[in-house]
């Protein structure tokens, strides 16, 4: 299923379908999804629960198998991309090992991938600095707040050479104030690393604030309602959320979500 894609296209899905067979009959998690994601994009997936946004991310990561259509990641099948370790995945929970210090948690993927000891030390220090946790490397996870733990898990996904970052509601369990702070930091991080980011969320302000493109999805069957290219500038202070263009995009996202929902009634 190897297919050449245009230069600069990281993910290309066409006619993608995924149906889960459950005891209550088939569930259409993804229905005819067509989407291309370009290199360096920050793409948010937004929609209510059951719209397939997480499932789509898991298909990219080869954690779910599509039942129809095609998808390529870096021009390869998702499986080949996973075997070559071309992406980092950040889950809803930090999922740090309680028996490892923060530093050693970040070394986990590096140990598995067989980096040299010197390289590991260098990379660990670099990503700890990147997420602002340099002073906490020797702490255990339980000694850190929830927001710090999630930052450590982002550092873990950044430690090895993957140009693609997949984030599944990484800030979903955090409070609004911490979330604002982390959103700001994530944007700075993205600007510095130039990675391609796929970001799943159910918060409209978060999606609009972070993204260059916003993919609005709807449930039953999970499908794409709207794809919005953000007119916002690359430089985004938190106050941008009160600007007219921000509110305009937010309103379009909201309309898309409402249109998706009307199918249910």
């Amino acid at each position, binding site marked *: 299923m190897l297919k050449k894609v245009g230069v600069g296209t990281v993910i290309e899905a066409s006619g993608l379908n995924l149906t889960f067979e459950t005891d209550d009959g088939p569930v259409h998690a993804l229905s005819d999804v067509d989407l291309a994601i370009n290199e360096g994009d920050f793409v948010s997936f937004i929609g209510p629960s059951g719209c397939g946004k997480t499932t789509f991310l898991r298909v990219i990561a080869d954690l779910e198998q599509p039942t129809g259509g095609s998808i390529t990641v870096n021009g390869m099948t998702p499986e080949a991309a996973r075997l070559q370790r071309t992406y980092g995945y950040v889950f809803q929970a930090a999922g740090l090992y309680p028996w490892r210090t923060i530093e050693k948690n970040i070394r986990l993927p590096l140990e*598995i991938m067989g980096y040299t000891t010197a390289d590991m030390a260098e990379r660990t220090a670099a990503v700890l600095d990147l997420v602002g946790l340099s002073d906490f490397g020797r702490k255990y996870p339980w000694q850190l707040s929830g927001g710090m733990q999630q930052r450590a898990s982002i550092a873990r996904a950044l430690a090895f050479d993957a140009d693609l970052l997949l984030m599944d509601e990484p800030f979903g369990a955090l409070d609004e104030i911490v979330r604002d702070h982390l959103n700001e930091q994530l944007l700075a991080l993205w600007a510095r690393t130039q990675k391609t980011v796929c970001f799943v969320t159910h918060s409209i302000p978060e999606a609009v604030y972070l993204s260059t493109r916003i993919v609005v999805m709807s449930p039953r069957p999970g499908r794409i309602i709207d794809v919005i290219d953000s007119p916002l500038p690359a430089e985004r202070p938190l106050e941008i959320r009160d600007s007219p263009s921000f509110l305009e995009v937010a309103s379009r996202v909201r309309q898309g979500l409402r249109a998706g929902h009307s199918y249910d009634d």
Partner: protein
Amino acid sequence: MTEALYQRVLPVLTILVAIIALWYAGAVFLNASWERDQAERAGVEITFAEILPKTMQQERPVLPAPHQVAGEIWATTVDKKITSKRSLIYHGWITLSATLLGFAMGVGLGVALAVGIVHSRVMDLSVMPWVIASQTVPILAIAPMIIVVLYNVGVSGLIAKASISAYLSFFPVVVGMVKGLRSPDPMQLDLLRTYNTSAWQVFWKLRWPSALPYLFTSLKIAVAIALVGAIIGELPTGAQGGFGARMLNGSYYGQVLIIWSALIGAAICAGLMVGVIGFLQKLVLGRMGLAR
């Protein structure tokens, strides 16, 4: 320090004092009838005040008083050479060596079975029911048969006793380790999948450390029943030495004191072994940052 004393030592001592008090009361109650019979036979009246001290120092009491048992233990440990056949330490070591060997065998078997069960669906479906069935058989019934069968293939003594210990002690290890090795949640396994992690690495980096707290809990149970297994293994053969042999001898000759001192000796051994594992548990989990 004093706070630790109050919080940990005091409750234990309180219960100990209560047990000893109950024990004395029981000794008086159970031994008094023999004193009354004696007095009646001699045709004399006897008061409770006269009975009381006599119940504390009978030659063959129904229930010996604590100080009698303590005296017997002292006489057979401190006042006896370790090489003597009447030394409790000599017998204790015979049982303990079988216990430790059987415990090691049981733990090895238990961990190996658990690893197999977790990694192979076939083993999960075929072995697990038999593991459970093995423990529904009364050990007192099956122990003599194991000893006899092993004797006929040329295995006797230490190894035979140790295999009874192993038979009992592998079970909590299998159950605990299966639970422990399966304790990582799906997200943890998904994360390792995104790193393209080999099954071997998943085991060493995730499953094994996750299972350690479960393992230590299982080991505490396993070592205590390993001791029970070794004692039971000494009963059917009328073994020459060990706590089991002491208990058997005591009951042949009506020497209740010997039975009780062997019982207490075995309890102390079990307590010490559980204590050592608890210490190791604290040490290992503390170093892993899992004990707060």
